[in-house]
């Protein structure tokens, strides 16, 4: 495991983004090799939001995520090998193979739960905030969810509760809505923020593809919450990755090639526009090289290092056996 990126450490944030991206690409390969792994909701294209928000958090903060969860699990520092093993239903998985891809959690890094019920993570995180406040802790709760989640009544109810009780909760809404494409929000509001806004929740909207912008917004939001000023709704706008809702595992935009950060003319194919204009990872690599934070070689070295770690992780997962069916009824109750 690697520690999550520290606030302001742009190299660490970038490294975390690469880890998130390469992890998901490996999940796609796993799904290609192991049919049962089934439908995946990949976090590709959300890395700038994910790594930047995680960099604004501290140990002790509690995270609740949704079906599009993998990125946050590894960003928070969960072991990629155990995460792969869980996605493959193996004994050494984070959840001992019982949760699978839609329910990854790692209490040791603050990833308290993945609920694949739309709206589930919102209510639970409000509860985590309630619990932390009861205990007089300075930690905060974070709920990650998508724009479509705002359609669900439980999400409205939970935001209302957090507001009236002034709970330490960050509502992180990754808005990947795409006109006419389902699923996405059907909220009648002019802007998503109008709903939390009506509930007097402080709202911040930022370009979710811009790691620097998200890091700044998330830092501001988290500071505000820790100061006891109540919940914040942080909306990060993204352009949905073409493979975002895939039924069979495929690479619509190809395997990520970071050299495209500086060789833009080589960007081609059906989804060239997404790669050129909407891939936050490529954009951040370009920025970091342009402003001299990293050299091209350093970017590629980081990528290679991540890839090496992930191939070890994949090997670990592949080597892990399935749980024994005899254990079926174990651990239903504590």
């Amino acid at each position, binding site marked *: 495991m690697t520690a999550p990126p520290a606030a302001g450490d742009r190299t660490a944030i970038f490294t975390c983004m690469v880890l998130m991206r390469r992890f998901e690409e490996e999940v796609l390969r796993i799904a290609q090799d192991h049919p049962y792994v089934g439908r995946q909701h990949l976090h590709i294209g959300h890395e700038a939001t994910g790594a930047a928000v995680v960099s604004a958090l501290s140990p002790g903060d509690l995270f609740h995520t949704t079906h599009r969860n993998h990125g946050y699990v590894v960003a928070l520092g969960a072991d990629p090998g155990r995460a792969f093993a869980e996605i493959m239903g193996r004994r050494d998985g984070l959840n001992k193979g*019982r949760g699978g891809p839609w*329910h990854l959690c790692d209490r040791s890094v603050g990833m308290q739960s993945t609920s694949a019920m739309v709206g589930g993570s919102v209510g639970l995180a409000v509860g985590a905030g309630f619990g932390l406040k009861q205990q007089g802790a300075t930690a905060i709760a974070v709920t990650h969810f998508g724009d479509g989640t705002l359609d669900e009544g439980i999400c409205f109810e939970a935001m209302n509760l957090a507001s009236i009780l002034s709970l330490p909760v960050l509502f992180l809404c990754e808005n990947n809505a795409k006109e006419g494409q389902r699923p996405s929000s059907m909220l009648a509001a002019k802007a998503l923020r109008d709903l939390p806004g009506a509930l007097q929740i402080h709202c911040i909207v930022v370009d979710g593809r811009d790691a620097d912008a998200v890091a700044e917004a998330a830092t501001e939001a988290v500071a505000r919450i820790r100061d006891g000023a109540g919940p914040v709704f942080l909306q990060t706008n993204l352009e949905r990755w073409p493979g975002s809702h895939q039924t069979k595992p495929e690479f619509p935009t190809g395997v990520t090639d970071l050299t495209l950060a500086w060789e833009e003319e080589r960007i081609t194919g059906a989804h060239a526009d997404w790669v050129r204009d909407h891939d936050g990872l490529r954009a951040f690599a370009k920025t970091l090289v342009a402003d001299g934070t990293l050299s091209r070689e350093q970017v590629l070295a980081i990528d290679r290092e991540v890839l090496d770690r992930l191939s070890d992780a994949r090997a670990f997962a592949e080597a892990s056996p399935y749980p024994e069916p005899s254990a*079926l009824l174990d651990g*239903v109750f504590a």
Partner: protein
Amino acid sequence: MTTKTYAEALIEALMEKAADDDRFAIIGRGILGHGAQAHFAQPLMDAYGARITDPPTSEGAVASMGIGAAMSGTPMFVHFGTASFTLEAVNQLIHEAGVAHSMSGGQITVPIVFHMYHGLRRGGAGQHSSSPQSMYANNPGLQLIMPTTPRDVKGMLRTVLNGNNPTLFIDHGALLGTEGEVPDAPYEIPLGVADIRREGADVTIVATSRAVLWAAEAAERLAADGIDAEVIDPRSVVPLDSEAIVSSVRKTGRLVTVDEGYQMCSIGSEIAALAAERAADALKAPVGRVARPPAPVPFSPPLEEAMMPGPERIIETVRKIMG
């Protein structure tokens, strides 16, 4: 008669209703799921797309909207997708749809069908594998149909769509691709009439939905070693053809029930209780129940596999009670 898939037969019933009644409306998307049969829904979309509403992710209000529309004279078909999601609409199904007719002294009728896919689906884990039929059956005022064959789904769906009562229509995605003979002219199949899938003298196996296929397979394999099993598919759980079940148990003297859902307070419990109430004196052996073991559904493939009350477990249970 024409051989068709369950998916085609289901869609045909909806298209017949839409053609017969221009007030009929549908709420929901992905009526045939996202699998290999999804395309069979296309003719419905093409012909009646204007009467199909794609709703937001708001199961509670979607259920209410259907109920209110039905109360107002618009026959409705509401598709929820995975049955697990209907747990967000339980109050609307039970405390609005189920009670409205009786509570209004008969003034209000609620002609609506709620469709959902239940059960283990490979990788559904603890939140996407619900088989809520037993829970729903514990409430009054809601019909509950669980057709298993292309012929049954088309005929029973026509019956409930032309009826005036709120109906839960619960089936399993694995049935969509199964084929069978379907009459060409429109037809209705009445509720409350069980289908004796196989006659037998030694033991009665009662199963619903996908479990009927498992029971039928088990019966064939048991026949090979000389055990003659009768397989009964109630087809509708509310109303339930208890007569057919009890007389079969009285005939064979043995009963095994099969539920894809959990055992406690299940349809299998109800059927075993019927035997204890009305066939206790005829029982030659202990009743056997086969159901989902009492644990949240694990993701891990071998563990999920072990949750299934498939043919092996049915055969094992029959052998055990045959002694």
